[in-house]
């Protein structure tokens, strides 16, 4: 299960957060933990360089894309490798929507479409789509090109 997908800006403000199977009272803890993790480690990291951590029995993979930091938290079958695969698709899709690694402004301008991409990629904690070209078509309700 992918427990959380979280986007934050460069000063740690949350832009998007989606939790799956995480009780409401634990979300605050996760939010704080992830933002601190980013503040401690993401400084000076290259675009899309993946960082990884584990906390208790869950895995965290996170990265920087333009001005935006992206965090994924998973457990069980979603270990560091599966999360790395997922975050790779997310960054590819976001870059595709924004045309480049986004500034915060561009990210917010494209907010609706990014939400749609995310909806295609992770659905209720499970990875659904993995191909950015297909995702690009799906968010416009176009069938994938191979059909």
């Amino acid at each position, binding site marked *: 299960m992918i427990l959380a997908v979280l986007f934050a800006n460069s000063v740690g403000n949350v832009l998007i957060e989606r939790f799956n199977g995480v009780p409401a009272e634990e979300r605050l803890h996760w939010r704080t933990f992830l933002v601190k993790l980013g503040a401690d480690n993401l400084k000076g990291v290259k675009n899309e360089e993946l960082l990884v951590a584990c906390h208790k029995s869950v895995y965290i993979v996170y990265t920087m894309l333009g001005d935006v930091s992206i965090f994924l938290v998973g457990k069980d079958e979603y270990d560091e*490798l*599966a999360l790395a695969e997922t975050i790779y698709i997310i960054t590819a899709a976001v870059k595709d929507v924004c045309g480049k690694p986004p500034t915060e402004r561009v990210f917010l301008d494209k907010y609706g479409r990014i939400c749609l991409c995310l909806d295609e990629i992770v*659905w*209720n904690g499970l990875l659904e789509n993995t191909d950015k070209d297909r995702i690009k078509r799906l968010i*416009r309700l*176009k*069938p994938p090109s191979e*059909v």
Partner: protein
Amino acid sequence: MAQPLVKKDDDHDDELEYSPFMGIEKGAVLQEARVFNDAQVDPRRCSQVITKLLYLLNQGESFTKVEATEVFFSVTKLFQSKDTGLRRMVYLIIKELSPSSDEVIIVTSSLMKDMNSKIDMYRANAIRVLCRIIDGTLLTQIERYLKQAIVDKNPVVSSAALVSGLHLLRTNPEIVKRWSNEVQEGIQSRSALVQFHALALLHQIRQNDRLAVSKLVGGLTRGSVRSPLAQCLLIRYTSQVIRDMANHGQSGERPFYEFLESCLRHKAEMVILEAARAITELDGVTSRELTPAITVLQLFLSSPRPVLRFAAVRTLNKVAMTHPMAVTNCNIDMESLISDQNRSIATLAITTLLKTGNESSVERLMKQITNFMSDIADEFKIVVVEAIRSLCVKFPLKYRSLMTFLSNILREEGGFEYKRAIVDSIVTIIRDIPDAKESGLLHLCEFIEDCEFTYLSTQILHFLGIEGPNTSDPSKYIRYIYNRVHLENATVRAAAVSTLAKFGFMVESLKPRITILLKRCIYDSDDEVRDRATLFLSVLGGDGTVDTDQETKDFLFGSLEVPLVNLETSLKNYEPSEEAFDVNSVSREVKSQPLAEKKAQGKKPTGLGAPPAAPASGFDGYEKLLSSIPEFAAFGKVFKSSPPVELTEPETEYAVNVVKHIYDSHVVLQYNCTNTVPEQLLERVNVIVDASEAEEFNEVTSKALNSLPYDKPGQAFVVFKKPAGVPAVGKFSNTLTFVVKEVDPSTGEADADDDGVEDEYQLEDLEVVAGDYMVKVGVSNFRNAWESMDEEDERVDEYGLGQRDSLGEAVNAVTDLLGMQICEGTETIPTNARSHTCLLSGVYIGNVKVLVRAQFGMDSSKDIAMKLTVRAEDVSVADAIHEIVACG
């Protein structure tokens, strides 16, 4: 630097004032949402409003029930619009709003229409939305469409249905299980993703059917799996099948190993790592099987991608716990990871190295770790400290450098858990390595000079009191201890007073000076400190006769001797009366723990921790029950109560089990009887015991049960006398006798005129064995306890235990026979082990402490030999233990 939880709109950073969501406010957005109700829908405008709603929701904003309902109803109107972009947004916002079950009905017809639409993408999205919001009843209505969707030629529709299936399986498993034919078809799909989702769903549907999973895996490992993700799933399922097969005794060549090995050459890194991990986790993996996996993991250690390095080092870290030698080849690569920017990777590398390193590399390793410790978080530091503790136990000669390291980090900043881990480690080292004692104690003394944690200070003071007086120069610790009396809070002061008293008692030359120090404490502001000082002053002021000395020693140093849980229960059962509470009446038996609790407890206690407290069990009930029967009062204190032994098969008319209560010169058999026939009432229930095969036992009395109604258990007792303090054994045959009366099941009452019919019922035989005279009593440190017993009285012998399936079986047989407590986690035997040492402790009848070292060895034909070394306070008991084993 980060300011978590500050919402975007609270931010006044200049750069951000261009944000499209600047000043966004829930109330205003909800107003804007009225645009959804316009007769002429403006798709662009509506999409913008939905985006704002999403923004609010994604920021953790919540809508009240009324707000959410209003927005939801408005959104449903947007189904009228044919604009595809808007429709996509509508699907998303409905999922996000997650309407309640009574509202769903508004939107189901629109969604069901979309689910059958000619436009593929409407179908896919409608399925996802419906599955998110519907309940079981509605699901049966649309099940037909979902089954169709699984085999849809459009992979997006198919995937949507399969992933929905994965979610629905949790809430409506019986419905989803009916789809397995369609899902099976999905596995053959040419689309990689459909195959991935179908595989996941089919496995979940069939996970409890071992044969089906094995067949699924067998088919796919031969065929082609199209995506790395599906391949990873397949590897996981394969390892599960391998495990199941091993559990069910299928031997010979390990099945599917070749498949796992071939995955090590896959082009996708995630598949390679998954396969390597699966191989390392195989039960009883051999070094030949391990080698290829370790080789690929080693390559990943120098990967430029942190995720791969992390995955590799994490796997190797696990392997190092069971097969340290297999990982030593990677040590050089691992050492370079100590400086890895990613601290998680560095910590894993260090802890792996600490497990695999050899004696010569310890110093070099410690140097590297010292630099590293300053910049990692406490949770990582604790892992490192624990690894160092085990390293020190492994290489006792290296204690100096390890102790220096621990004392250095003890002086640095850190939280309670971290400091406790260090203190526990130092204590373990002091206990296990006698040479390390003096320097270790001084490090602890220095630590309490500036320790902010009361708990740690008191624990260290207690430990100092036990170990300090036996050192070459005990006086050097007094200053540190007495400083506590001046500088600390009352709890620590009281502990310091107790410690001083211990020094005073043990070291004659210090006694006058300690007395002076204690006299100063009787003016302390705290009651407890004053009380202790006064008490110890009077103890120290005793006349010094041998008897008093022994009593004082017991008072100061003796452990409580009873498990705290038992003491607590006895105190609760004690009713205030003329008779004072007698601590000797408390049971000393350590109750065994249920397996689940053992698992939850995880690690064995180390350092300062006392042996694990046992949970309360039926024993406490027995204590109350026995003490309520006046006939048994003269027997004295119960030495041991056995667990119940069943004397009837399950599901017979009368269920009877027996508990053996062992007293010094009596044995009380407590027969717990249950009548399972609703139409019967049993009266005058008694057990006739034939003790002809138990020569040393003479029946003294029995206590019948007057009435045994249906399903209301009762007890009958039979009491035997046996020679005092002698572990007499014997076999007893039992017959239940009673008068049976018929009962009207509707009223539950017997006919008053019915005299009943006498009847009897044969029960199984019962044995009183040597193990019944042994109480399981653990020791906190086996080595110390062992060495404190006289080596002269040691009894050693060797036994052949014959052929057994495994060492574990032999270990269980011996421990069951002796009925002793297994110490220090030695009940765990590594798989494939050819030899094992088991440490046992117990108290034999007559309150004689017994310790046993049982060394087992197995040869190639599975013949097991055992060397049994016994030390006991009374040498005749050591002989008796050997006799038990020889006869067993």
